[in-house]
C-alpha cells in the first residue's frame, strides 16, 4: 500500500470518530476500543518497518497539493527516512501501553481522555512524517491542544498552573519559529524555491547572518521542547501534574520532538550556524546533565525525580547530536528511543505505586521488594536501563554519544558530561534503595498487592525492548545509519563550503565586538584522530550532487 504512512497517522482520528458514537458511561467499551485502535495503528506501522529499505532516501512518500494561495504553496508532503522511522515506531509502540495504563487510573471523563490520547497520537505521528515545513508546524502546534487538556483536566493538584505553563512556553517558542519559517520561505522564493518542501531548502545558500537568526529562532523553539537548561522549568511541573499516560507520552515521544527538530530541521537547514553554536548548545546540554542530576538527587517526589532525570538524559542526546559525527548522532537517535522506553517505563512504575498508595513521596515507602517481588524486579531492570548498565539499551546509546562527542570538537564537554553518567547511577540507585529495600515498616505498605496481569502485560513489551536493544542494537542502527551518514555529510560539506566561500563568514559583529579569530573556529582534532579530509569539498560535493539528483 502506497499510503500506509497516511493511514498510520490518521487511523487514530478514525478512532476518535468511532469513540464519538459510544456513550460516555460505557467506560469499558471506550477503553477497549481505544486500545484496539492503538494496537491496529501499531500493527499497520509495522508494515512500514518491514517495507522500509535500508538506504538514505525518504520512503513511503506522498506529495499532493494542499494550499496554493498568494505567495505560498503548501503541500501534503510526507515521508520517512531512517531518522524518523524509529520515532514513528516508538510512538505507535508506546501508545497502546499508555492506553492500557489508564484502565484503572482514569475514572472520570474517560471518553474525553481517550479522544485526547488519540488526537495526540495523530499529532505526534504527523510531526514526525512531515516533509513540508508548514505541515510540520501545523502538527507541531496541534499536539499542544490534547496534551494541554490531559494535564489540565486529569492532572494533580497544581494541574492548571502546569498546563498553562506548558502551553505558553511551547507557544512562545513555536511562534518565533513560525516567523523564521516565513522568512525562510521568502528567502527560498528569491532563489526559485516554489513550495514549503523541506528538501528544497537543504540546497539553499544563506549568508551567515541570516543563518544565525533563523537557527536561533528554530533552536529556541526546539530547546523549549527538549527541554534544555535553562528553558526546562515547565517540564517538572508538567510531568508531576500530568496523569500517568500523559507523563509517559510526554517523556517518550513529545520531548523527542525537540531533539528530532534539531536533527531534521535546525541542523541541516542552517549547518554553518549550527556549527557555530555547537559549543554553546553543548555547554547548555552539559549544564543540563549535571544540574538536573543534582536536582534529581534531592527530590522527595519520585515522579519529579524521574522528570529531572529526563532533562539529564535529553542533555546527552543533545550532546551527541551536536557532535556532528555518525557515532554521536546515531547515539543521540538511539538514546531518544531508549529514553522513550526506559523513562516511559519509569513513569508507569511511578503510576503503579501511586495508584496503590496515592502518594509519591519517597519517605512513604521502603522495603517494598518484600511485598512486591515482581514489581521490584521490573523496577530494577528499568533502573538499570535508565542508568545505562551494559546489557540494557541505555548503555548502547550513552556509549555511542560519549564516543562520538569525545571524537568531535566537544571533547572537554564530554569529559564533564561523563560524570553525569555516574550521577544518574547515584540518584537512580539511591531512590531504588530507599523505595524497595530497608524495613517494610509502614503499615500501609504491608498490604500492597503486587503487579497484576494487566500491569505485567504493560511492562513486558518494554522490558523486552530494553534487553533487545541492549544486546542486539544492530537492526536499529543499521536502519538509521544511511540517513545519518547523509546528514553528517550534508552538514560537513556545508560547513566546509561556507569557509571556502569568501564573505560567507562576514557576520555583522556588534559594535565593540572583538574580531572573531578564524583559527579558533576550527575543530580541534583529538590527538591521533585521522584527519577529517573526507570533508573536503572535492570528496564531499558528489554526495551533495547525488542528493540533489534525487
Amino acid at each position, binding site marked *: 500500500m502506497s499510503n500506509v504512512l497516511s493511514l498510520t497517522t490518521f487511523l487514530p482520528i478514525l478512532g476518535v470518530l468511532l469513540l464519538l458514537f459510544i456513550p460516555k458511561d460505557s467506560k469499558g467499551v471506550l477503553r477497549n476500543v481505544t486500545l484496539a485502535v492503538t494496537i491496529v495503528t501499531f500493527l499497520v506501522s509495522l508494515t512500514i518497518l518491514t517495507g522500509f529499505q535500508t538506504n538514505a532516501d525518504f520512503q513511503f512518500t506522498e506529495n499532493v497539493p494542499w*494550499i*496554493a494561495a498568494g505567495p505560498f504553496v503548501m503541500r501534503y508532503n510526507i515521508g520517512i527516512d531512517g531518522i524518523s522511522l524509529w520515532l514513528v515506531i516508538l510512538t505507535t509502540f508506546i501508545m497502546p501501553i499508555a492506553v492500557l495504563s489508564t484502565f484503572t487510573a482514569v475514572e472520570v471523563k474517560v471518553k474525553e481522555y481517550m479522544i485526547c490520547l488519540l488526537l495526540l497520537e495523530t499529532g505526534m505521528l504527523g510531526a514526525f512524517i512531515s516533509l513540508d515545513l508548514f505541515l510540520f508546524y501545523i502538527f507541531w502546534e496541534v499536539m499542544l491542544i490534547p496534551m494541554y487538556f490531559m494535564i489540565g483536566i486529569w492532572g494533580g493538584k497544581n*494541574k492548571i498552573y502546569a498546563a498553562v505553563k506548558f502551553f505558553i512556553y511551547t507557544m*512562545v517558542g513555536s*511562534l*518565533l519559529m513560525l516567523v523564521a519559517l516565513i522568512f525562510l520561505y521568502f528567502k527560498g522564493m528569491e532563489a526559485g524555491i516554489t513550495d514549503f518542501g523541506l528538501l528544497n531548502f537543504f540546497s539553499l545558500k544563506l549568508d551567515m547572518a541570516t543563518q544565525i537568526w533563523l537557527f536561533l529562532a528554530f533552536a529556541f523553539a526546539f530547546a523549549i521542547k527538549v527541554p534544555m537548561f535553562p528553558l526546562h522549568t515547565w517540564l517538572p511541573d508538567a510531568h508531576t501534574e500530568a496523569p500517568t499516560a500523559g507523563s509517559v507520552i510526554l517523556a517518550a515521544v513529545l520531548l523527542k520532538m525537540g531533539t528530532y527538530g534539531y536533527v531534521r530541521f535546525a541542523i541541516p537547514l542552517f549547518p554553518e550556524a549550527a556549527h557555530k553554536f555547537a559549543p554553546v548548545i553543548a555547554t547548555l546540554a552539559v549544564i543540563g546533565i549535571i544540574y538536573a542530576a543534582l536536582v534529581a538527587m534531592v527530590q522527595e517526589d519520585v515522579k519529579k525525580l524521574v522528570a529531572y532525570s529526563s532533562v539529564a538524559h535529553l542533555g546527552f542526546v543533545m550532546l551527541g547530536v551536536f557532535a556532528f559525527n555518525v557515532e554521536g548522532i546515531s547515539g543521540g537517535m538511539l538514546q531518544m528511543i531508549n529514553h522513550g522506553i526506559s523513562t516511559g517505563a519509569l513513569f508507569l512504575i511511578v503510576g503503579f505505586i501511586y495508584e496503590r498508595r496515592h502518594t509519591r513521596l519517597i519517605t512513604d515507602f521502603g522495603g517494598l521488594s518484600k511485598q512486591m517481588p515482581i514489581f521490584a524486579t521490573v523496577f530494577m531492570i528499568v533502573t538499570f536501563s535508565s542508568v545505562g548498565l551494559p546489557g540494557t539499551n541505555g548503555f548502547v546509546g550513552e556509549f555511542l554519544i560519549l564516543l562520538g562527542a569525545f571524537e568531535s570538537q566537544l571533547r572537554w564537554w564530554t569529559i564533564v558530561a561523563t560524570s553525569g553518567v555516574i550521577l544518574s547511577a547515584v540518584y537512580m540507585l539511591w531512590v531504588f534503595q530507599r523505595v524497595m529495600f530497608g524495613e517494610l515498616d509502614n503499615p500501609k505498605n504491608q498490604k500492597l498487592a503486587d503487579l497484576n496481569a494487566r500491569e505485567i502485560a504493560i511492562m513486558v513489551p518494554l522490558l523486552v525492548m530494553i534487553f533487545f536493544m541492549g544486546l542486539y542494537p544492530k537492526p536499529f542502527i543499521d536502519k538509521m545509519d544511511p540517513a545519518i551518514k547523509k546528514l553528517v555529510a550534508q552538514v560537513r560539506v556545508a560547513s566546509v563550503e561556507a569557509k571556502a566561500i569568501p564573505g560567507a563568514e562576514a557576520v555583522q559583529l556588534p559594535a565593540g565586538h572583538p574580531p572573531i579569530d578564524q583559527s579558533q573556529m576550527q575543530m580541534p582534532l583529538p590527538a591521533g584522530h585521522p584527519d577529517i579530509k573526507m570533508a573536503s569539498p572535492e570528496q564531499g560535493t558528489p554526495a551533495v550532487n547525488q542528493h540533489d539528483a534525487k
Partner: protein
Amino acid sequence: MDMLSIPVVNMTPILPEIFLSVLAMALLLINVFAPSGGQKSYLAYISFIGIVATAVLVGSGWGNHIESFNGSVVLDNFATFFKITFLVAAGLTVLISDKYMEREGCNHGELYPLILFAVVGMMLMASGTDLMTIFLGLEVMSITLYVLAGFNRANKKSNEAGLKYFLLGAFSTGFMLYGMALIYGATGTTRLYKIAEIVGQMTQPSSNVLLLAGMLLTMTGFAFKIAAAPFHMWTPDVYEGAPTPMTAFMSAGPKAAGFAALLRIFLVALPTMQVEWSQVLWVMAVLTMTVGNITALRQDNIKRVLAYSSIAHAGYALVGFAAGNGTGIAGILFYMLSYAFMNIGAFAIIILVAKKGESNGNVMDFAGLASKRPILAVVMTIFLFSLAGMPPTAGFIGKFYLFSGAVQQGYIWLAVIGVLNSAASVYYYLRIMVYMYMKEPTEEFEWVQVTAPVALALVISVAGSLIPGIVPSVILEYAQMAIKLL
C-alpha cells in the same frame, strides 16, 4: 423652461443596498401594523431570509466591475467580498438576537431594521469610491449603531454605552470629515481615482502639508471605528454595556467596514504615500496589539475580555495593512471574514451562558461548563482556539497571512511583536478554557437552552472557523481575487 436633466445611472452596483433598505422599511411597517407585544421572532426570520437573499444577490455580482453614479460607487470583487463579510456578521447576529432580546425584555421590533440599515451603511463604505459616499455610508452605519448600543433602554449600562459611543463617535467623525476636507483642499476632488491621479502627479506628495494632515486625520477617524489604539478607549465600555448580540455585531461588522473603507482610500487614492501611511500604521499596529492583549489579561468580565481581544485583533489586521502588499491585504480580507465567524460564535455562547440582566457574565461563571454542557464547551473551545490563532483553525491561517505580509515587506520586527502578542493572548483564552474544563461546576446550567436559530448560528460559525483553517483556499482565493484590481 429647461428640464432638470437627470443623468442616467446604472443602479446595478447598489442593488443589494436598495433591496436591504426596502426590506428594512417594510419590516418597520410590519412591526407597526402587527399586533403589539408578544413574539417578534418572525421579524428575525424575515430578516435572516432577506440577508441570505441579499448575499445571493451580492454573490452573483462576483467578477463584475461596474462603476456608477459618476464614479462614486463601484461594484467590484473587493466590495463584494466585504459585503459578504457584513452579511455574514448580520446574519449570525440576527440568529442569536431573538432569544436574548426576549430574555432581557427589550424585544422591540425596530432592532432588525436597524441592523439591516447598518449593513446598508457598511456596504456603501465598501463600495464607495468617493470620499463623500464613504462618509455617508459611515454615518448611516454609525447612527444605527449608536441606537443599537443603547438598545436596552431599561439598562443603565446600555444607556451609557449608547451615549458614550455617540459622543466619542461624533467627535471622531469630526476628525474624519476635517481630514477629508483637507484632502479635498489639497487635490480639488473627492473622487478616489482622481485623487490618485493628482497625487501621482505631485513631485513630493509627502511634503504637501495639507494632504499629509488630511491623510492623518482621516486615518484617525477610521482608527476610532476599528478600535485601534490610541483611539480605542470607548471600546470596552461600549462592548460591555451594549446588548451582547449587538456587541458581537459591532466587533465584526463595523470593524470590517472600517478596514474596507480605509483600505480603499489608502490603496486607491494614496498608494504613492505608502511610505508615510505604513509607518504610522506600523506604530499603530504595535500599540493596538499590545494595549489590547495586555489589558485583556486582567479582565474578569468575559465581554470585556473579548472587547480587548477585539482591539488586539484590529492590531493584527493592521500588521497586514502596514505591510501593504498582496499577502497582507488578502490576509486582512480573510481575517475579517473568519473573525466574524469565530467572534460572533463566541458571543453566542456567552449569550447562552448569561442569565437575565447579564448577571452571569464573568469568566468564572463558565466553571464546569464542559461537565454539564460538553458540546457547548467544545464549540466555545473551537472559537477560542481560532481567536488565539492555533492551527488548524481559520484564525491561524489569517494570522499566518497577516504576519507573512509583514515579513515579506521586511517588517520582521513587526511580525515578531505580533507573534509575541499572539502568545500573550493565548493566556486569556486559555483562562476561559481552564474554567470550562478544569474547575468544578458551581451551576447546573439548566437555563441554557439552545434554540434552533442559535444552533444554526453555532453550526455556521464552527464551520466558518474550522473549514478555512483546513482548506484555506476556499476563502483565500477569493480574497486574493478581490484585491487584484484595487
